[in-house]
Structures are given as structure tokens and as C-alpha cells.
């Protein structure tokens, strides 16, 4: 780089001698005024952070209290089901685990708690199935040579995190028999990468916190773009336009890959 600069000294001087255009004073005033206005009104996130936090805490506290009141009598008696359930499964908190076990233990289980199974689907499987349904054709679309650098770079960063992911997955398989949704078709494997990276994230955090943080932020942005693409696909263009504008405001330095842009761009 230095050699490039040095060899271009005359060029640099000539370039400096070119006219030095500046923004108009009116433009200066408009931008500076906007910068001051922005300081006077707190950002939307700051304005709502405290009320939303308090509301979330209240909902959580009330929910936990109600749950405890409902489950106090006789909860321990329903836990041991043939002794095949690992200790984690009998804890009162996780509803998904007993549900995942249902296909493996077909013998009748008269415990009253089983009645809740149909109304307590595992929360992780539903969004995943939805994501598979709207799976972007990332592999099918040949990425432009340079236009979508983040998409090209993502597999490299995710790849090291993939092996550790199998340990929790195997552990889950040992604890509960594989639920139908846990055995996806090979074609859907790539769409499970974000979920897998979530599982592997603690190890990545330990290994390289900065990389993990960037990965998390990136996946957050990708999720938001997926949501906008879904809105667009559903024909909800007004909402998609608004969401895209908000996305641009929140992430001005995020480069939307060309393939994703095709899915989210204003129509």
C-alpha cells in the first residue's frame, strides 16, 4: 500500500489540485441541525427500553408464579414414567421434552400431565419448520463474484462451529428419542445451520468472543432480512418497505447481499 502511495505522489498532488468541492452551507446547516435534534430526542430503543423491560419482567414473574401454583400439587408423582426419562425431563420447567418423548414410549401413560402435550409443542421446531418452508435458495443461486461477500464468508465462519454442535444434538438424542422434526431431510440441512450455530455458540464464545459477537449480530441482521423477504413474498409490500427502511436505519453499515436484495427490494 505504501509503495502505491509513494509511486503516486505526483498523482496525489495533482488530485489535490483539482477543485475542492464542498457541500453547500445550507446542507451543512441541515445536517448539523439534524445532529442536534437527534440528541434532544432519545432514540426509539432508549425511549421504550425501560417500559418494555419492566413489562417483560412482570409478565415473566406472573407467569412463573401462576405456573408454580398450578403445578405444586402432585407434580412429582407424574414425573417417573417407566424410569426411562432422564432427570432433566422430570423437572417441571421444560414442557417440550415430554412431548418429544411421546413417539418413543407408546405404552399408555395415564398421568394427567400428558393431556397438556398437544397444546405444548416444542417452540423450537415450529419456527424451524417455517424457516424451511421459506428457505432461501442460497445454494441454488450462484453468488456474484463479489457482490455478496457476507454470504460467501459465512460458511467459513460457521464451519468451525459445526462439529461441537453435534455434541448437544447427540445429548438431546440420548435424552429423548428423535422427534420427527429433529430428523430433517438432507436438503434442509443448510437451513439448520443458524439453529446449529446457536447451539454451538457458547463454545465459539469461549474460543473467540469477537467472532461470536459478529456472528450473532450478523445472524440477527439475516433474520431480520428473512422476515422482510417473507413479508415481500406474502405481498405485504407496505410493511416490507417500512421494515426495510427501519433495517437500513438500524444497520447502515450492513451490506445486503445481491441475492437477498432481490428478495427484499421495494417493488
Amino acid at each position: 500500500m505504501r509503495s502505491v502511495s509513494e509511486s503516486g505522489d505526483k498523482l496525489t498532488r495533482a488530485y489535490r489540485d483539482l477543485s475542492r468541492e464542498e457541500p453547500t452551507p445550507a446542507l451543512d446547516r441541515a445536517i448539523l441541525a439534524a445532529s442536534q435534534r437527534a440528541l434532544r430526542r432519545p432514540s426509539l430503543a432508549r425511549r421504550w427500553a425501560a417500559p418494555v423491560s419492566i413489562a417483560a419482567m412482570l409478565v415473566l414473574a406472573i407467569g412463573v408464579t401462576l405456573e408454580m401454583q398450578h403445578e405444586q400439587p402432585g407434580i412429582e408423582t407424574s414425573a417417573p414414567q417407566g424410569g426411562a426419562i432422564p432427570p432433566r425431563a422430570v423437572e417441571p420447567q421444560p414442557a417440550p421434552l415430554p412431548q418429544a418423548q411421546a413417539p418413543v414410549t407408546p405404552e399408555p401413560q395415564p398421568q394427567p400431565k400428558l393431556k397438556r402435550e398437544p397444546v405444548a409443542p416444542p417452540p423450537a421446531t415450529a419456527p424451524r419448520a417455517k424457516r424451511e418452508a421459506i428457505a432461501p435458495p442460497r445454494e441454488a443461486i450462484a453468488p456474484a463474484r463479489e457482490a455478496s461477500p457476507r454470504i460467501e464468508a459465512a460458511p467459513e465462519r460457521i464451519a468451525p462451529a459445526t462439529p461441537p454442535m453435534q455434541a448437544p444434538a447427540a445429548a438431546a438424542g440420548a435424552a429423548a428419542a428423535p422427534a420427527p422434526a429433529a430428523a430433517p431431510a438432507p436438503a434442509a440441512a443448510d437451513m439448520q445451520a443458524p439453529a446449529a450455530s446457536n447451539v454451538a455458540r457458547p463454545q465459539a464464545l469461549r474460543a473467540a468472543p469477537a467472532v461470536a459477537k459478529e456472528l450473532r449480530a450478523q445472524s440477527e441482521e439475516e433474520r431480520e432480512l428473512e422476515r422482510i423477504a417473507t413479508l415481500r413474498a406474502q405481498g405485504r409490500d407496505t410493511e416490507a418497505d417500512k421494515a426495510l427502511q427501519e433495517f437500513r436505519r438500524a444497520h447502515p453499515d450492513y451490506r445486503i447481499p445481491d441475492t437477498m436484495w432481490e428478495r427484499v427490494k421495494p417493488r
Partner: protein
Amino acid sequence: MASDEELMLAYAAGDGRAFETLYAKHKGPLYRYVLRTVKTGGEAEELFQDVWMRAIEARGRYAPQAKFTTWLYTIAHNRIVDHWRARGLTVVSTDDDEDAPEPAAPPSAEPHLQLEARRTLERLAAAIAALPLVQREAFLLHQEGGLTAAEIAKATGADEEAAKSRLRYAMNKLKDAIGE
């Protein structure tokens, strides 16, 4: 004197003067980068203002992991790409240089040095305008933003070798144009 990164953090914390300092320092280079990339004054003003508005709105998310200029020019690059996309244009890499227009002819002997200097500048301006987009952008980011090849790569989403190559191509053509 506070660095750009410290000034931006100070602005995010509520110091309006810090933004004024930052703006005064970067407005000219950023404006020229935008102007010479899109070429028309009206578009340049709109984009320039939009870039600063985005920087203002994103102040709370600013983290000084990279140089402030890299962050600012990344925003500018993204805004320009959005601008082109909205007009149905695509940024196409032309690193191979085959379709690039020929730079202006080298200078011929002129009797008056002053006239020659002016013509040199005219040739330079014409050669910059004739550069392929990605090369012009790399050159402007280097000259106006003071970005290194690695920082250009980061701001434009290219890999570092491509950024170096674009910068080298651009400078060679411009040097030819001014007869260096």
C-alpha cells in the same frame, strides 16, 4: 486532540460539539467521494445528507472496532449501492480491466506551464470519470478517505487482493493520463 472514534463516542453520549468537529473534518472528503462516484450534484447532495443521517441515527450502535472513516465510508458505499439498485443498476466488478475506456492521451508539450498544469488537471478529472466504477471508488476511498487497501476491502465488501488490484489499476491509468 480527540480521535475520530472518541469524537463519535462522545457524540453518541450526547456531546453535540463532538459531531460538529467530526463533520467539519470529514464533510469535504466524503462529499467529493460521493460526488465523483455518482457524478451529478443533485444526487450527490441527497446521498451525502442521507449518509450523515444514517450515521447520526446509528450513533448508539457505533463501536470503535474499526476506524471511524472505514465505518463512515462503509455507510456511504452501502447508500450508493442502494441508490444504484433502486435505479436498476448493478455494481459489476471489472477487475480484469478489459472493458475499461482508454485513459486520456499523455500530455503533449505546451508552451505555458500554467496552461499545461490546467490541462493536466482536466485530463486527470476526465480520466477519473472514465475509470470503471469499482476502480474509481477504490481510488476515491484512498485519496479522500485515506483508506488503505484493507480498509477499502472492508468498506466495499471486496477481498483485499481485489481492492489492491483495483487501486493499482486506477492509479496506473491516472498516472498515464497525467504523464507521470
